[in-house]
């Protein structure tokens, strides 16, 4: 009764998929994946590209244009913009990782439980989700920040729970598809407890959906996190963060374009790459597109 989802075939299937996945890296998706790898590497080790402390204020170097010693120039406090972008990658990626983890964990649990147990519990939970979905994600995040106060930790929670309702709905619908499969009913018939069925039979069959959601949610989390920081509700000084850098630099567009243009380009390129790669992942994992 433990064999309805066997591990071996899954693994070979996975290997084949990875081969196909890599094989499909044509056009822009190759460079996009490379770019994400570079950003991730910089986030893990910002020293790779920056030689300066991102919070070091240098009065003699205020708004220095891009040059050899400061390839992205310096900001209004004489801080090296490249270093701030590099450490900002760490802030942004870590933020998105935590926020997405929250939203995926919350939505997977809520969605799968609602689908499996159904009935009154399902109706109650899904009406709540409907109410939350009536608010745009950023608005929900703003409400949470207003309640908890500004800060990166609070913003993480805000974005995590802001994304969760939409995800929960998707997870539920894909779990519903699995819910009445024969192997689930068979497991029920022989008296496997509910939590075990969820864990052994339901989750493994919806995790592809969850993975696609996570990829797209990751990009969205970076964007909303940057938006909150842009508004001064996320990262607080002196933490380098892309959105906060843009927020402070927007007053300098006319006098020092590099303070906004370069962090902005990196943010845009990262989001674009994530979405391109997200599309790839979906192409790979969505059976209807195969």
């Amino acid at each position, binding site marked *: 009764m433990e064999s309805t989802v066997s591990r071996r075939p899954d693994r070979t299937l996975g290997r084949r998929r990875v081969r196909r996945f890599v094989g499909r890296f044509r056009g822009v998706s190759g460079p996009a994946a490379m770019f994400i790898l570079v950003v991730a590497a910089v986030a893990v080790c910002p020293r790779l590209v920056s030689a300066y402390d991102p*919070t*070091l*204020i240098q*009065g003699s170097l*205020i*708004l220095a244009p891009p040059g050899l010693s400061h390839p992205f120039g310096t900001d*209004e*406090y*004489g801080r090296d913009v490249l270093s701030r972008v590099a450490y900002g990658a760490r802030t942004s990626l870590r933020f998105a990782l935590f926020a997405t983890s929250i939203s995926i964990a919350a939505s997977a649990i809520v969605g799968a439980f609602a689908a499996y147990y159904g009935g009154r519990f399902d109706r109650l939970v899904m009406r709540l989700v409907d109410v939350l979905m009536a608010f745009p994600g950023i608005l929900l995040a703003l409400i949470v920040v207003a309640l908890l106060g*500004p800060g990166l930790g609070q913003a993480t929670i805000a974005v995590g729970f802001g994304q969760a309702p939409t995800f929960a709905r998707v997870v539920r619908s894909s779990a519903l598809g699995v819910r009445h499969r024969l192997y689930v009913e068979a497991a029920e018939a022989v008296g496997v407890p509910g939590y075990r069925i969820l864990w052994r039979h339901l989750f493994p069959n919806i995790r592809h959906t969850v993975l696609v959601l996570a990829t797209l949610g990751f990009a969205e989390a970076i964007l909303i996190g940057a938006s909150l920081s842009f508004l*001064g509700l996320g990262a*607080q*000084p*002196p933490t380098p963060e892309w959105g906060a850098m843009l927020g*402070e630099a*927007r*007053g*300098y*567009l*006319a*006098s*020092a374009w590099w303070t906004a243009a370069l962090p902005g380009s990196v943010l845009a390129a990262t989001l674009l790459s994530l979405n391109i790669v997200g599309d790839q992942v979906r192409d790979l994992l969505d059976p209807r597109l195969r």
Partner: protein
Amino acid sequence: MRGRSGPARTGEHENNGPAQAGGRHRVSRRRFLTTAAVLGAGVAGRGALSNRLGATGNRVFAITPRTGGALVYAVDQPITKLDPNLDAHRVNEIVFYQIFDPLIVRDKSDNKFKPWLARSWDVSADGRTYTFRLRPGVTFHDGTPVNAEAVKFNFDRVHNPALASQATPTAVGFYDSSEVVDPLTVRVHLKSPWGPFLDALSFSYRMVSPAGVRKVGDKDFGRHPVGSGPFRLVEWVENQQVVLERNPNYASTPSIFSRTGQALLDRVVFRMIPEPATRVAALESGEVHVITATPAQDFRRLNGDPRFKPVIGRSPGMGWCWAINVTKPPTDEVAVRQAINYGIDRPAIASIVYGAYQSYHAFEPAYGALVPGTWSYDKQSEIYHYDPAKAKDLLDRAGWKVGPDGIRQKNGKRLEIVLNSWEHGIPEVLQSQLRAIGVDLKVGVRDTSSVNAAQEKQDSHMSPIPAARTDPDILSDSFHSRNIPGLSGGTGDNYDFVKDPVLDRLLDDGAAEVNLTKRENLYKLAQRRIMAMAYLLPVTTRDNATLMSAKVQDLRFDAVGFFPWLHDAWLAR
């Protein structure tokens, strides 16, 4: 009141407040002001005088003032209420000072009071009775006369408790009554002598039309203002603009104006543009003629451009300074507060954040409770010159030892101090400098009302309390124990929560003293006390950085530095 909290208030409100009678001790800073305004563009603006002449017509300085045209003046906050009796938010004042005239005016060139609506005035020997003789033949925009009855009406209205006026001097219950002696003579009785009264008269008590108030009611008058000033309201588009037009019957110009009779401009349009970059863009595109609160980087970029000229209004009172909460650990320790004061390099901050203004002597380092140039400024209270060694020593001796992360600790608690502000710039540099002495400064940059609310709720240690005023009585606002916020339901501005009987007495005596020498000494002692106890972190002065089109001529600011006299201004072709 500075009015930094409350539901209907947004943005920064630094209102001019009571200022001082007399005072010829004003030092170079103030004197510089008068010339800076005139010469600013040519002298400091990279000597671009000849370029400017070339660009704007070579007879700009030779031709006579031109009548006509509409001056567009950008302000940074929404205009909400034009009622000088009840309101004193800076953006509103900028507008209603053009509509309403005061009884007297402070001449910033000699710092003396000069006649405006009052021809002359006497003060009784005990300092409790003021007699004003009014200029004859002056009428409000609605045709009713500016007479003793009208002046009495104004004083009574400002001090009517039912109206809960937020105009500056009303917090102090000094006013007793007014008495009409004859149609053009009015006598004001005070309950006790009040030193800042003449100064308050010179800007805060502006005369509104009693008939105008009766017509629309006390509450709505701020939307339908009727004064006797050089301009009158014609149009008000909510959150966009307020349009004034010339008062054709205006004849009551004070002697300090450069010409008599009606104003030269046909219209003045106050356009509300909250975003600094948008204001600058509007100036560059020619959409507006004057912008205030010009960001330093744009000021630097444009002050040599012949199309524009910078005018700095240097402002007395309290500059860019942060109240330090003396009740919340760890800033309840005087050693910590003193260490913060010793640990910051003010000249470096001024040059990093406000480098562009330094050649105009604006946003300069400040070391005292008042900024240099304010009457009664106390040079001896400048004790906290940058001395990191001393700062570290103070903290060491107070038991704050450097921990493994470089931040000091005592009894397992890290030396964390929360500082809020509504502008970027100084906080970031403070944070970096204070880390060097082992202080972890947590910085939050938010809107004004959140910043003030956080300090009131004791969530933060330090909160900005700048306030442009010509009278040192402004110190009472921020340091007198009766002004602790929340106390007896009050809206005071004592954001350091200081309850110091010594200081209270100095401030009370200073407000009641009429002898100028004695009064000056009392305020000097008060400043010394404030800085010795380190109730405050002064950083720089805080001035009015205005940038205007080169077409705008003869626009000057008053003694507070923020309020334009538009009567004399005109637009060259």
